[in-house]
């Protein structure tokens, strides 16, 4: 994945920085999340602006405009092996509660720095290394260690759906093996590790599988509307472009992290005709669109998706104009959540920069994501296959029960 590698970023940083007119705002967003992160869970109402979702912060770091912070990290990543990366300040602070010789959070943060590695995959790899470095001598001990590790990962960022779901699925997949019953400890441990690595591998390959499945839906001459920056969607489009399909892409500019700009940039590099529009122009241009493809932060039990702010309104517009809405999401994003409406979620907040000072009395909606109910979605491209929304619950029940 050459276009996401750190060296590529370094090569391109000049013209990217030209695009970026508000580097200061971005670097403010990159400030470490406040320690009151856990409190937001129990307190849905207050919106202190410093309660920024770590998940969206990471996304901003990966897909947003490249900042000096990010460049520093990327440079470090180029120079060193992944495992020897210096842990960034917020991770060390976050893991301070669980001071151990080996911290799963540190490990996770190391993995997370890889821009093309999804957060859940990073978590899965971190958990696998928990098994590897474990000094437990009994099965129970190992399982308990894993449990605490995954719990600490989950509590590290409660707003990230894929992180929670990835940890849960890892626990299911790895610890539910018959090996636990009869083999001696070392054999069982290596079996655990094997399954953990396999699961990590499956999760890592998920994007490729989805790209293969999804590109069949792209036909010659079609116009595709995308929203935000989704690595899976990009992979689909790239696969389609490589198989010589001719299509056009409309990118919505997703404020505040300018993901649309970034996405359009990536597509332009693939020589795909691309047009950038602001998300308020979605309804205006929907009649020339043949399909909508979006990614997902999480796929919930109802078959609906939680995704970057604006997905819901695009789905509504598409539904009213009878355009298909496709969702590309890896199966580790399937979460046992069931939001009933938009407010029925753990809020994930992020700063919005309007470019002008906002009067004190004006409230700013800072939620980073919305929930799209299943009736507005046509199909989900997942590594389990192409599913209708109602099958999601079927898969979830089979995964979790």
């Amino acid at each position, binding site marked *: 994945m050459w276009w996401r590698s750190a060296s590529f970023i370094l090569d391109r940083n000049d013209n990217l920085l030209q695009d970026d007119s508000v580097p200061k705002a971005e670097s403010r967003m990159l400030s470490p999340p406040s320690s009151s992160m856990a409190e937001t869970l129990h307190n849905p109402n207050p919106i202190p602006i410093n309660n920024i979702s770590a998940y969206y912060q990471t996304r901003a770091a990966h897909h947003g405009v490249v900042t000096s912070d990010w460049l520093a990290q990327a440079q470090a990543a180029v120079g060193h092996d992944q495992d020897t990366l210096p842990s960034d300040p917020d991770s060390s602070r976050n893991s301070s509660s669980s001071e151990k010789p080996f911290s799963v959070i540190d490990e996770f943060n190391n993995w997370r720095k890889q821009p093309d590695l999804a957060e859940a995959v990073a978590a899965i790899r971190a958990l696998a290394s928990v098994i590897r470095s474990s000094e437990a001598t009994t099965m129970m001990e190992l399982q308990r260690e894993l449990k605490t590790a995954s719990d600490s990962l989950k509590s590290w960022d409660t707003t990230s759906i894929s992180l929670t779901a990835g940890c849960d699925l890892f626990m299911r997949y790895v610890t539910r093996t018959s090996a636990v019953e009869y083999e001696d400890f070392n054999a069982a441990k290596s079996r655990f590790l094997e399954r953990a690595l396999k699961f990590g591998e499956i999760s890592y390959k998920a994007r490729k599988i989805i790209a293969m499945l999804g590109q069949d839906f792209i036909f010659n001459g079609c116009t595709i509307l995308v929203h935000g920056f989704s690595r899976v969607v990009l992979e689909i489009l790239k696969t389609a472009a490589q198989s010589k399909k001719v299509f056009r892409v409309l990118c919505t500019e997703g404020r505040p992290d300018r993901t649309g700009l970034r996405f359009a940039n990536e597509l332009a590099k693939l020589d795909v005709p691309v047009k950038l529009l602001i998300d308020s122009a979605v309804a205006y241009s929907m009649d020339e669109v043949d399909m909508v493809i979006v990614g997902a932060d999480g796929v919930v039990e109802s078959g609906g998706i939680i995704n970057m702010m604006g997905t819901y309104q695009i789905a509504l517009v598409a539904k009213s104009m009878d355009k298909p809405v496709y969702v590309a999401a890896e199966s580790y994003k399937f979460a046992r959540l069931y939001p*009933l409406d938009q407010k029925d979620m753990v809020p994930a907040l992020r700063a919005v920069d309007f470019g002008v000072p906002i009067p004190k009395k004006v409230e700013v909606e800072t939620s980073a994501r919305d929930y799209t109910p299943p009736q507005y979605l046509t199909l989900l491209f997942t590594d389990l296959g192409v599913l209708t929304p109602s099958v999601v619950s079927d898969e979830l*029940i089979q995964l979790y029960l």
Partner: protein
Amino acid sequence: MDPRRAPRTVIDPKVRQVGFFAPPDRAQSVPLQQTSDSPSSPPLSDISPSGNSISPVMIPPPRHLSDVSSRTIPAGFAPNRLLSPLQRFSGESIIPVGSYNPSEFASPSVRDFFEDKNARSPGPRRSRGLGESGKFASSLPAGGFELPPEVKPKSLTTVSVVSNLQTNVTEKAGDQSNDSHGANSKPLKEKLSKAERRALQEAQRAAKAAAKAEGNVGSGMSTKSVKSSKAPTQKKDTASIATHEKRGGDRPIDKDRKKEIPHPRMQFDDMSRVEKANKRAVVKQTEVRNRVELFRHLPQYEHGTKLPDLEKKLFRLGSVHPAVYKVGLRYLAGDISGGNARCIAMLQAFQESIMEYTPPPEKALNRDLTTKINTYVSFLINCRPLSISMGNAIKFVKTRIANLPLTLSESEAKQNLLSEINHFINEKIILADKVIVRHAVTKVRDGDVLLTYGSSSAVELILLRAHELGKKFRVVIADSRPKLEGRLLLRRLVGKGISCSYVYINGVSYIMDEVSRVFLGASSVLANGTVYSRVGTACVAMVANACGVPVIVCCEAYKFHERVQLDSICCNELGDPDAISKVHGREEINHLKDISNDENLQLLNLTYDATPSDYVSMIITDYGMIPPTSVPVIVREFRKEQIWI
């Protein structure tokens, strides 16, 4: 009317009418039709038209039927041949709609009943019963042609029908006499002229009037009134439909019923079968006179007639264990209501009876205990139709009995069963409720206004738990006559300090604007996501959906059922019609007091309705929060994992 019901309505000669209808109109319309026909025309041609002309909704007959009648039937035999397939379906008015599997509901008495039939049925007819399981459209014409000559419909003789009415015997007896007249009745029918037919109509009308007078007199609760009160209903049938209905004769068709597994649910508009079932029944029940046409297939008995009768019999009913007997009486009296309460009471009664049970010598415990349970169940059905949850629980008990290892000693086997049943009660009902509460409480936020309808035990637990957790919310309880179950819930919630509002269901559309969540209980959730629940639930769910309020249904997984049901007609329970015609303590509005026996007044007190899954946002069950589309997954996994295979 939606198209899916059309073929059924056409094929069934007893045209089901939507809503209420007035018998006089019908009586007039039939002769009208017939006089307009030329005497030589085949009678079939006036059947569907006349049937439809009665019905407020016109449904064209399926094309293949008319094709068959116009093309292939020789003139002489046309009436008989064409009628019999029709008649066959009138005999059994269940034509399966959808893929539902009613075997769980077939009471043992019903089962015995069918098996008797099978034993007596003659060989060559056997094949005709086979096509009945759903694809009647294809089997219909074939059935008409293969009809052997000896099964010519016999009972057209409306003369004999009239005599039946006058002597006040029930339809069953009428059929039998028809059979005996069979040989001469057929030629008689073919010779019927227009004038004769008219004479017949007159005779029927006279008979009806006579029987009606009698019915009004004999409204007492004695067993005599069973017959006298049944006559008018039946007479209504015969008067209006006699011309075609009687031709086929019910009996030979009944014999056709083959060993169909699954057994259909008892259809109470099939008089002959009802008669037989009544003979076996322990409980003598008085049929309510005027039943709504669309709901004839459901049992409806006069309230209060069963209890005294049963009490008298307490010591004569050797076959029913006293504990079961007690539970049955309490069902009857309405002491126990609500799916969970009824189910637990029944299981505990079974436990008690199992504890005191000893298998007779030379009989295996597995076999004998199953028949025992079957008699108990049929007794309970007589007291009140089973709920779906009870059906599932009974199935569980029976499988557990059947799966008992033969090596177990008697006491071990009993112990095993008792603990299994205990396990079921604890895990599937009590613990399930706790899990549901845990899930549902997460959906209650501060400042919410929660609406619930009627009184559901699960919803009550949720509200109490949310209150315990210190959530600030308000409750709106919607309620409806005649049961007013919500009042008790209201009382308990207010007692706990929850702020509540109380509205009748008439006010739901008004109050829905301020509601943020609707929590509903369910009697059952069916495989297509349809929620089968207290009547009125569908209305509340639809209003909520229209207002964009999420509807949350709370239902334990043991109440899930793999049947598919599209409406609330084919399977329901009728309550006491007096309950809706009278308002206690309000003498000034009891306008229906003296006309409740009027033939033109039909009171419909439904107990359940079906809420389509479109109106349900979420189902909370012991397996978590699932969309209604995932009910079949739960049903599938639930079975695989444990109980009934």
